[in-house]
């Protein structure tokens, strides 16, 4: 029984964004990071904002859900806004009250930096919201495939990631169970000095590690019993295939990028 939620946890749906090839989505995010830093005037920022919100609409997720999902980040966004507002002393003085003075340079810097930050986080969280961890792993594996030539163990790496993903919820459950058992034996995780709280972690971590090792050992046996022998003679169920939708998306994204470069100074 989960009592917590993970930021950017995958939400199943069949929206256009969900259906896109993960390789395309990964490359897109990569490109978007660069593009965001190339915005240099009001129009280009406005354009990026419009793009980002259109992506959310295309994902068919509630805008509120997406914004709530990045809640832990809001603090940093607000912090960078206020920091620049109060401490960057460039351009004309806009407002002064006692020791607080706000310059237009500070206002612009604050707004643009926090906006960049917001857009980046929002669009990246869209990736994890619309793509299963497995698809992301497949995407990474496919994109890294050329590295196999240089003996980079791409298949093993991808398998490692996917197995870790599969075990995270299991270990979370385990941790919850162990912490309840230890709480019943009188461990207090919530009060006391920092030192005592750090000590309180030992009865959690030792059993958790032991169980993780045991699981790893059992899994290795089970995998062998199920015929796993590395990359030898293996076929794959999940196959990434570009569809019409992906080609359309490439075309649209290139057009949007063109518009962006035309509009920036």
């Amino acid at each position, binding site marked *: *029984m*989960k*009592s917590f*939620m993970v930021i950017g946890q995958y939400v199943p749906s069949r929206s256009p964004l969900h259906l896109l090839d993960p390789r395309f989505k990964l490359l897109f995010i990569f490109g978007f990071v660069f593009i965001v830093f190339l915005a240099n005037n009001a129009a280009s920022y406005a354009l990026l904002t419009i793009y980002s919100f259109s992506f959310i609409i295309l994902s068919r997720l509630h805008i509120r859900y997406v914004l709530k999902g990045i809640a832990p980040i809001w603090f940093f966004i607000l912090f960078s806004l206020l920091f620049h507002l109060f401490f960057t002393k460039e351009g004309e003085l806009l407002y002064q009250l006692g020791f607080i003075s706000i310059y237009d340079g500070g206002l612009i810097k604050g707004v643009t930096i926090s906006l960049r930050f917001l857009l980046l986080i929002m669009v990246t969280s869209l990736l994890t919201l619309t793509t299963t961890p497995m698809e992301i792993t497949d995407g990474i594996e496919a994109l890294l495939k050329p590295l196999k030539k240089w003996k980079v163990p791409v298949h093993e790496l991808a398998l490692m990631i996917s197995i870790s993903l599969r075990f995270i919820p299991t270990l979370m459950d*385990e941790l919850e*169970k*162990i912490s*309840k*058992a*230890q*709480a*019943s*034996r*009188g*461990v*207090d995780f919530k009060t006391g000095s920092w030192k005592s709280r750090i000590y309180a972690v*030992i*009865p959690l971590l*030792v*059993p958790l590690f*032991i*169980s993780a090792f045991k699981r790893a050992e059992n899994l290795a046996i089970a995998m062998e019993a199920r015929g796993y022998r590395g990359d030898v003679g293996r076929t794959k169920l999940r196959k990434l295939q570009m569809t019409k939708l992906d080609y359309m998306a490439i075309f649209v994204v290139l057009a949007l990028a063109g518009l962006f470069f035309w509009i920036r100074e």
Partner: protein
Amino acid sequence: MDILFKNVNYTYQANTPFAFKALKNISFTIPSGKYMAIIGHTGSGKSTLLQHINGLLLPTEGTVKVGDYLLEKGRKSDLKGLRQKVGIVFQYPEHQLFEETVEKDISFGPKNFGVAETEIKARVRKAITDVGLTEEILAKSPFELSGGQMRRVAIAGVLAVEPEILVLDEPTAGLDPKGQKEIMELFYHLHKQKNRTTILVTHHMDDAFTYADQILILKEGAKLMEGTPDQIFQKRDLLTSVQLGLPEILAFVETANKKFPFPIEYNGQSLDLLVEEIEKKLKRAKQ
């Protein structure tokens, strides 16, 4: 210490799209010194219920009273004091072992509750013999023991706190039949000897009917029925409807009733008495 559940509701992740109602309006009482079995399927709310007894979970609605401790939403209670009085043996309790030696691990609970050093030593020795192990084991690492021994050490760790109420969550899971019987006998003995309130959460009908004074059956988070084993037998149809599997003796009586031309009543009598009765009826039917 009496335990009193009054209209208890519990919802996981309340006020989110993932909200799940695990307990629905549960009320019951366990008088001090009784042996109560709580039975239900996987997912019937058994585990959620037991976590209310020592305040690991607080009811979303309703109240839980354990002795003088009152547990309800938003109320600050002395949970540590409560947890000293209520010992829980969780499923696969050996998964909570972590110390270097068996002795240290058993001492962990009493130490947390501030029991004096000399007193702890005595309690550890008592607990280890109570679970049927010898003192030589105390110096060993818990991780070099067999599965059955680890289970006993973990149980000793709970007993050493000397709780007034003992809650057992499927304490025999994963043991072989012999180990299961031994552990169940051990808890029954502790219950009788100290008149300790014992709550057994299980899906083994046979264990519940053998050991418990009182049985509570849960279905999908709600109370389906409650009563002494005899009373529960009377409501056989309802019992079949939970699909927990009848105790074998009941299943036998049921098969017999289908075949034999005379009715056989079962009210919890022992097997030899039952056979004596059937034998008499068979003889009479022959004449």
